[in-house]
C-alpha cells in the first residue's frame, strides 16, 4: 500500500496512508489532525469547506488493509431532539480502515486509522490486488425493528451479519478453496459478530457461507480493467438497506479521472488536483417516542437512526420560506396512518458533511466524481445559479464509472434514451466535436441507488457559455425532489453551496473537456479490452461437475427475459423476479420459465436462475437480456461483475445499473391493478397486452467467473426479494 509520503501544498510531510482536502481540492493533512479524527472523524458545521474523503492507495500493485465494520457517533451531524438542549451525534455504522496490522482483528489507535461516516476512497490501478481483512464488529439490532427478520430462514438477521461488495468492478465472484481460502467479490457470504451470539441454524432461505467475525477478501483487478469510479457497500440480503443507510459505504477508483478526460486546449490528462469526489449519503434521525415498524409500535430513543428508511419522513417539498440546508424536518403522518416524525430530521450529506461549501478556484473548473451511498433514495440533482435561480450547465463525462462516448452522428439527446432518462440534456455552447466523441451537457441528473456520475463543473452563464464568474458568483447543489412512478416520493434538500472564485487564465480548456481513451467504455470492446480478451484465469479454473449440463450457452439469437414484479400481487412487498428464455422468433422456450410459467420468485440463495459458460477458448460471452417492468413504480436493474449497453444504441454508454420505466395498466385492468394488485401487473396480464411495458433490451458481456446476483438496487426492493442468482463457469472447450 502506498503511504503517500509526499509533501502537499502546505509543505507538510504525510505519514499516513490517506489524504484529504480543504480550500484547494487536495492537501496533505497533518498526522495530529488525523489522530484527532480517529474516533469520530472530522467535525464540521454547516457551510464548512467540503473535505475530500480519506484515501488509501495501492503500492506496487497491492492495497492491503483491514476494514472493520463498527458503530460510532457521527460528529458531522448534530441533532437536537425536541424538548432538549442536548446535542446528539447519531450513531452511524462505518468502515474503520487501516493498513493491515501484522495480527489481530482491530485497527490500532493512531494516524493511520480512519473511520469517516462520509466514506473512505480506495484508490486502485488496473492489475492491482485489493486485500482486505474484513471484520464485523457491528452491534446487534432490535429484532422488532428489522423488517425481514420474520421472513423464512432470516431469523438471524437481527444479529447484524455483514459482508462487502465491490460494486461495478469487473472481477471474479470467487468462492474460497483449500488452496486459496480468501474470498473474491462473493456476496453470498455472511460474517457474523460473535459478540452478538452464534446464529441459530435455519432450515430454509439462508444466505451462503456463515463465518464468524472475520474473513479475508482478495479482489483481483484485471490489467485491462477500465478506469473509473466505483463504490463498496454491504450486500447481505434482508438488511442491505439497514446497513447502507446507517453509513456503510465508500468509494473505489480505478486509475484516475485523467485517464479518460483531457482539456480541449492541451492534450494532457486532466490533473488530479482539479478532481473532487462527492459521496452523497442520507440518514433519518428519530425524535424519540413510539414508531410503527412491521412488527408493530416500538419505542425509540431520541437520536436513534431509522435504518428501515421511510420516504414519507419529510414533506417532499419545503414550505414557503423553509430552508433545507442538508436536512429536512420530520413530519407528522399520523393522519394517514403513518408515523409522527415531528422533531426528527432526515440528513442528506456530502462526504458526511451537512451543506458544505465547495470552493471552485481552478480557472479550468473541476471534475466532480459523484457517487451515492443512499439506500432506496434516488437523487434528482441540479446545480442552481444563486443569482438567476436557473439550473447551470455542466458537461457529462462518465456514467457508472465509464466515460460517455457518443459518436458524432448521434444526437446528444440520445444519451437520455440509452441511459434510461437519467439526464436532462442541454446544449454545450461553442463546443465543437473533437475526435470521435460528441460533448454532452446536462443541467439535471437523476441518480438512482448505486449509480455514479462524473461531471465537468465550471462557471457558465445563463446561456451555458463558459465565462469568467462575476464577483461573488455562487450556486447551490440541490436535490430537487423526485417521485418514482406510483412509488416513493423523495424530498427536496439543498446539498451544498458552490462558490465560483475562478481567477486567472485557463490552461486546459477552451470550451469543453474531451472525453474518451483506450481505457474507457469503447476500450473494453477493442482488441486487448476486457470484453474481447480471453479470460486468463479461467484456463486453469475447475468447472463444477454439473457445468456441462446445467450451464449450456444461450443459443444464438435467443435472449433471456427478466420480469420485475411481485411473487404475489395481492401481497404488498413481495418483490420478486421472473425468468424465461426467448428464441429468435420471440417464442418462449418450453421449460425455461423460472420458477414456473408466468410466476415470479423472491430471492432464494440456494437457487441459481441463470448459469452460462464462457465462450470457446475462455473468451467473454455476449448475451442479450430483455427486461420487463410489471410494476407501476420504478426499479433499478443492476448486474454484478459486468456492465451492459442498450441493444442498438449508437454509442458507448456502458452501465452497471439501469432505471426501468413503469408499467402502464390498460383501462380494463387499471383499477384492479391499483386496488387489488398493489400497483403491479402479472405476467399473464402483460402477455395479453393488458399491461403495457416497454421492454429494455441490453447486450451484456460476461467476462468474469463465479456466482453473483442481478437485482433491483433500490435496497428496499432487493431486501424484499427482487434478486436472483447467476453463475458463470469456464468453457468446457
Amino acid at each position: 500500500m502506498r503511504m503517500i509520503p509526499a509533501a502537499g501544498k502546505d509543505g507538510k510531510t504525510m505519514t499516513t496512508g490517506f489524504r484529504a482536502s480543504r480550500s484547494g481540492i487536495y492537501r496533505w493533512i497533518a498526522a495530529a489532525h488525523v489522530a484527532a479524527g480517529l474516533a469520530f472523524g472530522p467535525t464540521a458545521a454547516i457551510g464548512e469547506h467540503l473535505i475530500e474523503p480519506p484515501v488509501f492507495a495501492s503500492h506496487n500493485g497491492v492495497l492491503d488493509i483491514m476494514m472493520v465494520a463498527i458503530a460510532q457517533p457521527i460528529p458531522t451531524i448534530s441533532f437536537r431532539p425536541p424538548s432538549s438542549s442536548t446535542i446528539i451525534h447519531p450513531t452511524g455504522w462505518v468502515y474503520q480502515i487501516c493498513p493491515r496490522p501484522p495480527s489481530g482483528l482491530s485497527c490500532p489507535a493512531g494516524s493511520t486509522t480512519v473511520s469517516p461516516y462520509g466514506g473512505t476512497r480506495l484508490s486502485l490501478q488496473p492489475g492491482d490486488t485489493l486485500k482486505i481483512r474484513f471484520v464485523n464488529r457491528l452491534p446487534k439490532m432490535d429484532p422488532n425493528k428489522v423488517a425481514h427478520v420474520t421472513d423464512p430462514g432470516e431469523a438471524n438477521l437481527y444479529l447484524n451479519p455483514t459482508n462487502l461488495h465491490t460494486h461495478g468492478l469487473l472481477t471474479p465472484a470467487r468462492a474460497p478453496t483449500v488452496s486459496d481460502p480468501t474470498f473474491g467479490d462473493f456476496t453470498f457470504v455472511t460474517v457474523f459478530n460473535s459478540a452478538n451470539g452464534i446464529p441459530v441454524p435455519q432450515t430454509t432461505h439462508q444466505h451462503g457461507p456463515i463465518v464468524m467475525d472475520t474473513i479475508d477478501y482478495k479482489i483481483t483487478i484485471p490489467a485491462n480493467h477500465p478506469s473509473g469510479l466505483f463504490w463498496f457497500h454491504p450486500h447481505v440480503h434482508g438488511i442491505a438497506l439497514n446497513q447502507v443507510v446507517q453509513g456503510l459505504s465508500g468509494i473505489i477508483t480505478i486509475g484516475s479521472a485523467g485517464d479518460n478526460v483531457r482539456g480541449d486546449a492541451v492534450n494532457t490528462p486532466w490533473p488530479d488536483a482539479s478532481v473532487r469526489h462527492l459521496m452523497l449519503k442520507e440518514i433519518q434521525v428519530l425524535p424519540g417516542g413510539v414508531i410503527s415498524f412491521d412488527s408493530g409500535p416500538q419505542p425509540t430513543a431520541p437520536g436513534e437512526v431509522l435504518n428501515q428508511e421511510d420516504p414519507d419522513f419529510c414533506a417532499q417539498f419545503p414550505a414557503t420560506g423553509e430552508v433545507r440546508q442538508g436536512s429536512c424536518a420530520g413530519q407528522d403522518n399520523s393522519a394517514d396512518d403513518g408515523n409522527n416524525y415531528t422533531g426528527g430530521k432526515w440528513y442528506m450529506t456530502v462526504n458526511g458533511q451537512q451543506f458544505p461549501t465547495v470552493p471552485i478556484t481552478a480557472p479550468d473548473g473541476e471534475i466532480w466524481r459523484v457517487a451515492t451511498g443512499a439506500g432506496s433514495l434516488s437523487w434528482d440533482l441540479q446545480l442552481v445559479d444563486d443569482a438567476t435561480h436557473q439550473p447551470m450547465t455542466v458537461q457529462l463525462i462518465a456514467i457508472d464509472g465509464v466515460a460517455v462516448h457518443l459518436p458524432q452522428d448521434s444526437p446528444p439527446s440520445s444519451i437520455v434514451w440509452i441511459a434510461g432518462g437519467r439526464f436532462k440534456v442541454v446544449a454545450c455552447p461553442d463546443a465543437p466535436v473533437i475526435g470521435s466523441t460528441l460533448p454532452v451537457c446536462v443541467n439535471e441528473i437523476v441518480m438512482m441507488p448505486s449509480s455514479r456520475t462524473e461531471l465537468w463543473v465550471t462557471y457558465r452563464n445563463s446561456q451555458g457559455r463558459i465565462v469568467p464568474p462575476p464577483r461573488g458568483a455562487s450556486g447551490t447543489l440541490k436535490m430537487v425532489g423526485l417521485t418514482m412512478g406510483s412509488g416513493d416520493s423523495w424530498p427536496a434538500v439543498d446539498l451544498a453551496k458552490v462558490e465560483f472564485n475562478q481567477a486567472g487564465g485557463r490552461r486546459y480548456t477552451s470550451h469543453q473537456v474531451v472525453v474518451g481513451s483506450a481505457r474507457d467504455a469503447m476500450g473494453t470492446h477493442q482488441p486487448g479490452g476486457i470484453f474481447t480478451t480471453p479470460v486468463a484465469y479461467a484456463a486453469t479454473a475447475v468447472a463444477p461437475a454439473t457445468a456441462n449440463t446445467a450451464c449450456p450457452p444461450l443459443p444464438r439469437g435467443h435472449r433471456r427475459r427478466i420480469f420485475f414484479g411481485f411473487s404475489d400481487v395481492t401481497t404488498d412487498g413481495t418483490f420478486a423476479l421472473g425468468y424465461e428464455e426467448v428464441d429468435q422468433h420471440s417464442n418462449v422456450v418450453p421449460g425455461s420459465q423460472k420458477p414456473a410459467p408466468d410466476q415470479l420468485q423472491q430471492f432464494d440463495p440456494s437457487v441459481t436462475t441463470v448459469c452460462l459458460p464462457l465462450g470457446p477458448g475462455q473468451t467473454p460471452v455476449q448475451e442479450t437480456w430483455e427486461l420487463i417492468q410489471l410494476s407501476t413504480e420504478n426499479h433499478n436493474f443492476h448486474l454484478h461483475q459486468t456492465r451492459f449497453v442498450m441493444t442498438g444504441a449508437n454509442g458507448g454508454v456502458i452501465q452497471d445499473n439501469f432505471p426501468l420505466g413503469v408499467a402502464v395498466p390498460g383501462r380494463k385492468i387499471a383499477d384492479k391493478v391499483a386496488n387489488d394488485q398493489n400497483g403491479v401487473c402479472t405476467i399473464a396480464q402483460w402477455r395479453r397486452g393488458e399491461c403495457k411495458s416497454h421492454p429494455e433490451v441490453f447486450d451484456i458481456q460476461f467476462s468474469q467467473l463465479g456466482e453473483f446476483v442481478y437485482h433491483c438496487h433500490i435496497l428496499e426492493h432487493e431486501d424484499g426479494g427482487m434478486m436472483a442468482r447467476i453463475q458463470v463457469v469456464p468453457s468446457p472447450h
Partner: protein
Amino acid sequence: MWQELFLACSLINLSCASVPDVSIIQTAYEVEASSGSTLHDKGLKVLKAKCHHDPGKQFLCEVMFVSSSDPSERLYFDIVAVTRKNGGWELKSGLCKR
C-alpha cells in the same frame, strides 16, 4: 448439566468428549448421511469445527468443510446444531453446501 456428565465420564473412565470436534461431527454426519437423512448434502468432509455451548442444551458449531467430489476443493462454511444422543452425538441441523 454438561459439567456433571463430564465429571461422571471421568469417574467411570469413559472417553467422553466435552465438546464436539471435527471427528465427532464427521462421524455423526456419516452415520446420518448413510442412513438416508435428507437433512444433509452428500459426500462432505469436515475440515474444521469450533463449537459453542448454546443455552438450548446443544452446541452450535462453526464448521468448515469440502465436498469430496469437488475437484476444486471449494470451502463451505456453516453453523450446525449438535447435541448428545444415547451417549453419542447427533446433528440437529443440516450440513449443507452453502
